[in-house]
C-alpha cells in the first residue's frame, strides 16, 4: 500500500515482494517474445514461419502449463487466491481461467498465422512477437487489481492488435482496418482513462480493493462523480468488446484485417475485455450494481438485436461473422448483467466455447478465401461440401455451434447464460436473447445453404485446389472436437468455470 510512502525516513528503497510463480504465465509469454526478437535480430539465419509457429506454440504451452500448479494452489481451500506486488496483480481462479483461454487462443491462432504469413510472403518474427505480447497484455488485464495496471494491460493488448490488424502491407484494406481500429481504440482508451481519473477522484484510489472497500464502508453524499466515471468506463469497455452503439469499427476491421488476427480479436481480445469488465463491474462496483445493471441491460439488448439483424443483410463472410460476433458480445453482456457468480461462470463458459468456434470459422474462411485471401464473399463457400467435405463439416459444426443448436458447445453456452440471467429474474432479457438467437440462426442457415444446398455452376480450378495445411487441420480438428465434446459433455468445463470466480485480494 501507498500509505507509508511519503514518510519513509530511511533512504533505502524497499521494493514490494514478488511472487514469481504467480506471474510466471505472463512472464513466459513476454520473455519468449523478447527472446525471439533478440535472437532474430542477432542471428543472420532466416527462421521459417513454421519454426516460428512452433516456437510460439511452445511458449504458449509453457505458459499454459505454468497456470496448472497455480490453478491447483488457488483451488486449494487452505491457500486460496492471492495477490502479488503490493496487490497490483491478483491470481485467482478467474484470472487463471482467462490466462488459459488466452494461451490456447495464441496456440491456435499462431498455427493459422504461420500458414497465412507464408502465403502472403511476410517474413520475420514480428507478428509472433506481437501476438505473444498482446496475450501478455490480456493476462495482465485479467489479473489486474489496479486501474492503472488494467489500463496498461489494455494498451499492451490493443496496441499490438492495431499493428496486427495493419500487418499485411500488401493490402491497403489491412492498413485501413488498422487505422480505423487504432483511431477508435484510442478514442475508447481516452474514455476509459478519463473514467478512471474520475473514479480516482471519487474514491481516492486506483486500486480495486481500496475502491471496493471504500464503497462498502462509505456512504457517499454525492455520487455524481462516481457515476460519471463508471459511465465513461462502461463506454470504454463497450468500445473494446464491440457492443452496440460502439460497434461500428468491428465489421470494417474484421473485413480488412488479416484473417488469423481477426480470429484472435474475436476470441482472445473479447475474452480479455470481458474479463476486465467483469472484474471491474461485478467485483469492484458490485455495491453499485443497481446503477450499472440497467445500462448493461440496455446495451445488451441493443447489441443482441442489432448485431443479429445487421448480420443478416451482409454479403461478405467476414462481415457476417463480425456482426455475429457483435451479437455474441450481446450474450456475454447478458451474462455480465446477471451480476452473479453464476453469470460470471456463464460468461467464462461462453468465452471459452466461442473462442474455439470462432477461431475454427475464421480458419475455414482463411483457407477458402483464395490465394490472396480476398475472396470472402458469401458466394465463395458455394458448394464447399462438394469441394472439401471435411472442411464443410467442420464449418457446419462451428456455424451450428454459434447458432446454439444442441449437442454443440454453443448451445450449452447460451443455455448457461440464459440460466444465469433468469436466476436474477431478468426474464425480458432472456427472451430478447433467445429471439436474437433465432434471428442469428437465419444468418448461419444462409451460409449453410451455400455450403450444402447450392451447387456451384462453374467449378474454378483454384476453387478445387484447396490444400489444407497440417497446422490448419490441427486447429480445425481441435476446434471441432472441443465444440462437439463440450456440447455433449459440458460438465468438465462447467465445473471449472464455477470455480473461476473472481475475487479481489489485498496484498
Amino acid at each position, binding site marked *: 500500500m501507498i500509505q507509508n510512502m511519503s514518510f519513509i525516513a530511511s533512504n533505502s528503497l524497499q521494493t514490494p515482494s514478488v511472487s514469481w510463480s504467480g506471474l510466471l504465465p505472463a512472464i513466459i509469454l513476454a520473455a519468449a517474445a523478447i527472446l525471439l526478437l533478440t535472437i532474430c535480430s542477432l542471428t543472420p539465419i532466416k527462421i521459417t514461419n513454421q519454426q516460428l509457429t512452433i516456437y510460439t506454440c511452445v511458449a504458449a504451452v509453457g505458459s499454459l502449463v505454468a497456470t496448472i500448479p497455480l490453478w491447483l494452489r488457488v483451488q486449494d481451500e487452505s491457500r486460496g487466491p492471492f495477490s502479488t506486488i503490493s496487490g497490483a496483480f491478483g491470481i485467482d481462479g478467474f484470472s487463471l481461467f482467462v490466462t488459459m483461454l488466452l494461451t490456447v487462443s495464441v496456440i491456435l491462432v499462431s498455427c493459422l498465422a504461420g500458414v497465412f504469413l507464408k502465403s502472403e510472403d511476410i517474413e520475420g518474427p514480428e507478428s509472433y512477437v506481437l501476438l505473444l505480447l498482446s496475450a501478455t497484455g490480456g493476462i495482465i488485464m485479467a489479473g489486474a487489481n489496479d486501474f492503472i495496471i488494467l489500463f496498461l494491460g489494455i494498451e499492451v493488448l490493443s496496441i499490438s492488435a492495431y499493428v496486427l490488424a495493419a500487418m499485411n502491407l500488401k493490402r491497403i484494406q489491412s492498413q485501413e482496418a488498422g487505422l480505423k481500429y487504432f483511431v477508435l481504440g484510442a478514442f475508447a482508451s481516452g474514455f476509459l482513462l478519463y473514467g478512471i481519473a474520475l473514479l480516482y477522484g471519487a474514491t481516492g484510489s486506483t486500486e480495486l480493493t481500496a475502491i471496493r472497500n471504500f464503497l462498502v464502508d462509505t456512504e457517499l453524499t454525492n455520487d455524481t462523480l462516481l457515476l460519471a466515471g463508471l459511465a465513461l468506463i462502461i463506454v470504454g469497455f463497450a468500445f473494446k468488446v464491440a457492443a452496440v452503439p460502439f460497434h461500428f469499427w468491428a465489421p470494417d476491421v474484421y473485413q480488412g484485417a488479416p484473417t488469423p488476427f481477426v480470429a484472435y480479436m474475436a476470441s482472445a481480445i473479447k475474452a480479455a475485455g470481458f474479463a476486465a469488465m467483469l472484474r471491474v463491474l461485478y467485483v469492484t462496483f458490485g455495491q453499485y450494481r443497481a446503477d450499472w445493471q440497467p445500462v448493461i441491460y440496455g446495451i445488451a439488448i441493443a447489441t443482441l438485436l442489432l448485431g443479429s439483424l445487421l448480420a443478416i443483410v451482409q454479403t461478405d463472410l467476414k462481415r457476417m461473422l463480425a456482426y455475429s460476433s457483435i451479437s455474441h458480445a450481446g450474450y456475454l453482456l447478458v451474462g455480465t448483467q446477471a451480476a452473479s457468480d453464476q453469470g460470471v461462470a456463464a460468461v467464462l463458459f461462453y468465452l471459452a466455447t466461442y473462442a474455439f468456434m470462432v477461431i475454427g470459422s475464421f480458419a475455414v474462411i482463411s483457407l477458402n478465401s483464395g490465394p490472396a485471401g480476398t475472396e470472402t464473399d458469401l458466394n465463395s463457400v458455394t458448394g464447399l461440401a462438394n469441394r472439401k467435405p471435411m472442411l464443410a463439416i467442420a464449418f457446419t459444426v462451428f456455424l451450428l455451434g454459434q447458432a446454439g443448436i444442441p449437442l454443440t458447445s454453443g448451445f450449452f453456452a447460451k443455455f448457461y447464460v440464459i440460466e444465469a440471467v433468469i436466476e436474477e429474474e431478468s426474464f425480458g432479457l432472456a427472451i430478447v436473447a433467445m429471439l436474437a438467437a433465432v434471428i442469428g440462426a437465419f444468418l448461419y*442457415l444462409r451460409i449453410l445453404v451455400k455450403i450444402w*444446398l447450392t451447387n456451384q455452376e462453374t467449378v474454378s480450378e483454384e476453387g478445387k485446389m484447396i490444400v489444407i495445411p497440417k497446422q490448419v487441420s490441427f486447429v480445425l480438428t481441435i476446434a471441432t472436437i472441443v465444440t462437439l465434446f463440450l456440447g455433449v459433455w459440458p460438465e468438465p468445463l462447467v465445473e471449472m468455470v464455477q470455480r473461476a470466480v473472481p475475487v479481489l485480494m489485498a496484498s
Partner: protein
Amino acid sequence: MGLLTIFAAALPETSFPAIPVLVLLPAFGAVAVALTPNARIGLHKLLATVFTGITGAISVWVLTAFESNGDYQFLSEQTWVDSLGIQWLAGIDGISLFLVVLTGLLFPFVVIAINPHHDHKAYYIWIQLLQTGCMGVFVSLDLFMFFVFFEIVLVPMYFLIGKWGHGNARYAATKFFLYTMLGSALMLVSIISLVVLHSKNAGTDLTFNLIEIASNPAISTTSARIIFLGFALAFAVKVPLFPVHTWLPDAHTEAPTAGSVILAGVMLKLGTYGFIRFGLYLFPEASHFFAPLFITLGVVGIIYGAIVATMQKDLKRLVAYSSIAHLGFIVLGTFALNTQGIQGATVQMINHGLSTGALFMLVGLIYERRHTRQISELGGIQKSAPVLAGTFTLVMLSSVGLPGLNGFVGEFLILLGAFTAHRWWALLAATGVILAALYLLWAYQRVFHGPENGADDQDNTTPDLTNWERLTLFPLIAGIIFLGIYPKPMLDRIEPAVDKLVTHIEETIGDDSFTEPVPTVQIRQSFTDLLEQTHETHEDNTHSGGHE
C-alpha cells in the same frame, strides 16, 4: 465418453438397457454409415436398414415387455451436468409407448421403401440422426434432455428437406427451421424459468427432472400460466396449430417423400406429445385455464385445414392441409382434459402417423409415375393402376375416419371426450369429419377417375404398384386395418397412464373442474364391443398378429 457411462449405468437397473439402445443405436448407425466409403451405396442402405431395423425390433420388444400400468418403465438414469441438476432420465409410459414403437418401425420402413435420388450416404446419416432425435424426445423425462432432442431434430430435417426436396426446397427448409426454432427458443426460456422458480420456491437444488417438478408444484399460478404459454408456443408451432401453421404446407410439399412421411408420421407428434407430456402434466391448472383457447384453435384448425385443403391444386399440399385438420383433432382431444379425450388424442397420433404417412407414400409413388402433383394434371389412374387406387382408397378412408379403420377409433374417442367437456365445440369439430370426407373424396375423384391426362398422347399409362411397393406398403395397411378393428390392446396400454394424468390434473384443479368425469371403463368397454360387433365379418388377416 458420456454416452458410454450412460450405457454402463443403465445396465444394472434393467436386464436390458432398452432406452439408451433405442436412442443411441440409430446414431451409431449414422456413424457407421459415415465411416463407409462414399461409393458403396448398397452398403449404406444395408447399414441403415440393419441399424434402424434392430431399433425397430427393440421397440417391438419394448411393446411386448411393457406392463399395462401407469408407471414409467424401462427407466434409465445417469447424471449429466450435475452442477446444474441436468441428468439423463428416460422412461416409457403408456402415452409414449406407441409413439416409440411408431418411431422405431416407421424409420426402417422409410429406409427400406424409399431410395434417395442422390447423395445416398448423407441421406442415410441424416435419417438415422433424425430417428435418434425423435426417439429421444419421446423417452425424455428430463426437461433439458427433452429440449436437446426436441431442438436437434431440426438439423437432420432441415437437410433432408433442403437437399433432397423439390422445387423451392431451400426456402421451405429455412422456413421450417426458423419457425420451429422461434417456438423452441421461447420454450427454453420457459424451461429455465420453470426450473429456477421451482428450485427457488421449493428450496431445492436445480433439477430438470420432470416427475419431481410435476409432483411439487411450487410456482405461483400466474407464473405457471406464463411459462405454460412459452411451452405451448413451441408445441403449437411444431403441431402445427392454426395461426402458426404456415411452415407446414411448404415443408411438406417441398420435402422428399421420406421427409414427408417422417414429418407427418413422427415429427408433428413431437408437438402434440409435448402438449400432453409437458403441458398438461407440468401445468394442470394453466392447461385448464387456457383450454378454451386451445380448443378453439384446434377447432379452427380442423375447419380451416379442411376448407383450405378443398381448394388445393397440389395433391401433396392437400394432404398437408388435411394433416393440419387432423392435428386440430388431436389438440381438441388433449384439451378436453378427460380420459377419453387424451386417450383419443394419443391413439389419433399413431393413427395419423400411419394414415398420413401412407398417404404421403402414395402421393410420392404417384409423383414418381406422373412427375406432377397437380391434381388437374392427374386423372384416370384407376384404370391403369387399380391396386394403387385401391390402396389409396383404403388409406384415404382411414384418414376420413371410416368406422372399421384406425382413424375412426381416435376421432370417436376425441369427439366423445370433447363432447363431455364442451359439446358445441365437439359438434363443430364433427363437421370437420364431414369436410374431410368431402375434400378427400373429391380429390380422389379428380385424381383416379376421368380421362388419364398426359397419358393419351404418350404411349405409357401409369404403371401399377410393383410387388416390391406392395410389400413395403403392406405394414402400413396392416396397421391401419388392425388398429381399426381391434384397438383394444392399444387402448389397454394407453389407458392407465392417461388415467393417472387425468387424476393428476383433477387433483390440481380441484372441484371447479369443467370436465365431468364419465365412467370411462364403461364407455370404452361398450365402444370396443361396438367395434367388434360391427366388424366381426370383416376379413382380417392381421388378427393373428395381435398379442392378447
